[in-house]
C-alpha cells in the first residue's frame, strides 16, 4: 500500500504543483523518489509531529495541498490537537497519512500498534477518515483526497497486500465498495487491511457471505448503508482497531439513527469484530496478533461454520 501511495502521489504531483509532502523522519526507501523529483515540495521536518502538522497548516494557508507522512500513531495521536485545532478548525487542506495501521508493525510493540486512531479522528468535525482495503483502493483514494478540498486522513497497512479489485475502483465520499455479491443474507463490512483478510477467509472457507470494503470510516453514506442494511439480516463489521469508538461503532450508530429516523424498518444482527479494548504485550506478526485478539470471521454467522 505504501508503495502504491507514493507512486500515486508522484503521479499527482507531476500534474499538480500544489502538492507538498512532509515527513517526520520516516519513509526510508519509500519517499526518496518523491524527494528527488520534487525537492522544492518535499521536506523531512525531523521527529516532531506536532510541528509537522502545524507547518502543514501554514503551508496549506499559502495554497499548498500538504501531505504529512509518518508511521501509525505519530502523525495522529501525537499531533491530535494540531489536527483538531490547526487543521480541521481552519479547514486547512492537509492530508495526514499513517503507514502501518493496526498491527502492521506487530513485533515493534504497542508504541507502533495503530489501534485507536480511527475512533479518535472520526470525532473531529470536518475530517474525512479513510482506510483503503487494497492497493487499488489506495491509488484511487490518494487521488480522491488530493482533490478533496479539506482535511483528510488515510490509514495504510504496509507492503505486499494483494489487489482485490478486478478493475480500478471509483471512490466517492462515504461510499462502500462491493467486492463479493451473491444471493446471500449475510455480509461482511470491512475496513482497511481487514478487507483483504475477509476476502481470503470467505474464499478459503466457502463462507456464504457478501463482502464490502468501507474505505471511508467517516463520513459513511447513510443512504447506501440503509440499502445494505435492508438487504442483509446478518452483518459482521471487521476492523483492526479497538472495539470502542471505531468503524463498527460508526456503523452501529448510523444504523440506529436510520432506525430511529424511520429510514430502516428493522436492524440487522450486527456482530462487531474488533480488538476487545485491550493492549497486547507480546511480540508477533500481524497475523499472529490478529489471531490473539480474535480478529477472525470464525464462528460467524452463527451456525454456519
Amino acid at each position, binding site marked *: 500500500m505504501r508503495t502504491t501511495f507514493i507512486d500515486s502521489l508522484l503521479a499527482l504531483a507531476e500534474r499538480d504543483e500544489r502538492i507538498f509532502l512532509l515527513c517526520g523522519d520516516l519513509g526510508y526507501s519509500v519517499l526518496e523518489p518523491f524527494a528527488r523529483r520534487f525537492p522544492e515540495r518535499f*521536506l523531512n521536518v525531523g521527529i516532531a509531529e506536532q*510541528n509537522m502538522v*502545524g*507547518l502543514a497548516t*501554514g*503551508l496549506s*494557508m*499559502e495554497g499548498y495541498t500538504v501531505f504529512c507522512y509518518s508511521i501509525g500513531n505519530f502523525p495522529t495521536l501525537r499531533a491530535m490537537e494540531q489536527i483538531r485545532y490547526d487543521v480541521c*478548525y481552519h479547514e486547512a487542506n492537509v492530508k495526514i497519512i499513517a503507514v502501518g495501521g493496526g498491527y502492521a508493525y506487530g513485533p515493534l510493540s504497542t508504541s507502533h500498534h495503530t489501534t485507536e486512531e480511527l475512533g479518535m479522528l472520526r470525532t473531529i468535525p470536518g475530517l474525512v477518515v479513510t482506510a483503503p482495503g487494497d492497493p487499488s483502493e489506495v491509488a484511487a483514494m490518494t487521488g480522491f483526497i488530493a482533490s478533496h478540498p479539506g482535511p483528510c486522513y488515510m490509514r495504510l497497512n504496509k507492503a505486499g497486500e494483494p489487489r482485490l479489485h478486478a478493475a480500478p475502483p471509483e471512490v466517492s465520499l462515504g461510499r462502500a465498495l462491493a467486492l463479493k455479491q451473491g444471493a446471500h443474507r449475510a455480509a461482511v463490512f470491512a475496513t482497511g487491511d481487514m478487507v483483504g483478510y475477509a476476502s481470503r477467509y470467505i474464499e478459503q472457507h466457502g463462507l456464504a457471505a457478501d463482502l464490502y470494503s468501507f474505505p471511508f470510516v467517516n463520513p459513511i453514506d447513510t443512504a447506501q448503508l440503509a440499502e445494505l442494511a435492508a438487504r442483509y439480516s446478518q452483518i459482521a463489521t471487521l476492523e483492526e482497531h479497538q472495539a470502542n469508538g471505531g468503524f463498527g461503532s460508526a456503523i452501529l450508530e448510523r444504523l440506529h439513527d436510520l432506525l430511529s429516523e424511520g429510514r430502516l424498518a428493522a436492524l440487522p444482527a450486527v456482530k462487531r469484530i474488533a480488538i476487545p479494548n485491550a493492549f497486547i504485550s507480546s511480540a508477533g506478526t500481524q497475523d499472529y496478533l490478529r489471531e490473539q485478539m480474535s480478529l477472525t470471521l470464525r464462528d460467524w454467522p452463527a451456525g454456519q461454520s
Partner: protein
Amino acid sequence: MTTTQDLARNIRLQCLQMCFNKRASHLGGALSVADVLAVLYGSVLHKDPAQPKAPQRDRLFYSKGHACTALYAVLAETGYYPHAALETFTDNGSYFTSHVNHKVPGVELSTGSLGHALSVAAGTALAGKRRQADWHVFAVVSDGELDEGSNWEAILFAPHHKLDNLTLVVDYNKIQSFGSTAEVLNLDPLADKFRAFGWDCIEVDGHDHGQLSAALAKTGRQPGKPRVVVAHTVKGKGVSFMENQLAWHYKSPDAAQFAAAREELTQGHAA
C-alpha cells in the same frame, strides 16, 4: 496622525473596556503586549485592512489567544472593522470569542490552546521562502506558552531552514497562570537559549517603541536567520495596581477599579 503611542493607549483602553463590560479575564497579558501590537500594526506590518487576505500582506500569527482583547482592539483601531463590533465581545453569536477567532477579519489563526501558532507561522514562512515571496511572517507568543514542547520543535526548525522572513516576539512579562515563570518553569536565560538554537536574538524593553521599532524592522536582518525579539514587558502595564500582579491574569475590574484604571491609562500617555 496617530502615533504608535496613541495606538497603544487606545488598545489598552479598549482592552479595559471589554474586560469590564463583559466581566472577562486576561487583562494583564493584554496590557503587557499592547505596545508590541501597536508598533507592529502602527508602523511595521504591510497590510490593507480593506483586503485582510491580500496576498502581499505581512502575516501575523498571534499565539497568546487568551489575550484576545489586545488583538481585537488593534484590528479595530487600524480599520479592519468598526469599534462598535467590539461591543459584541463574548456575546451569544458573536465571532469575538474570548480566545482569538479567525472568523474575525484580520485574524490569521484561531488560538487559545497554547504552543500552536509558531509552527503554523513557520510553515507559512517556509511557503514564502519556497515561493520567493517578499512578505514577512510574524508570530507573537507569551512567555508561559514556551513551556509547551511544540514551540521548541518549531524553534529548532526555523533556523535550520533559514527562515529569515520570520520574526518571533516573546511577550516576556514573566508571570504565567499560576505563578512567575521563574517559579513555575524557568525560561532563563531565554535569549541565550534562542541564540544557542541559531536565532538572531534581540532583547528589548517591550514598552519602548523606539527599541521595538528597531528590533521589528524587516530591514537590516541577518541573512539566513529567523529573528526573535525577547520583549521584556510588565504584566498589567499602564495600570499601577495591576502591574506585576498575578491576579490580573484572571480578574476583571469592578466599577471603581475600572474608573481608576481608565484614568491612569488616559493620563499616563497624555502627550
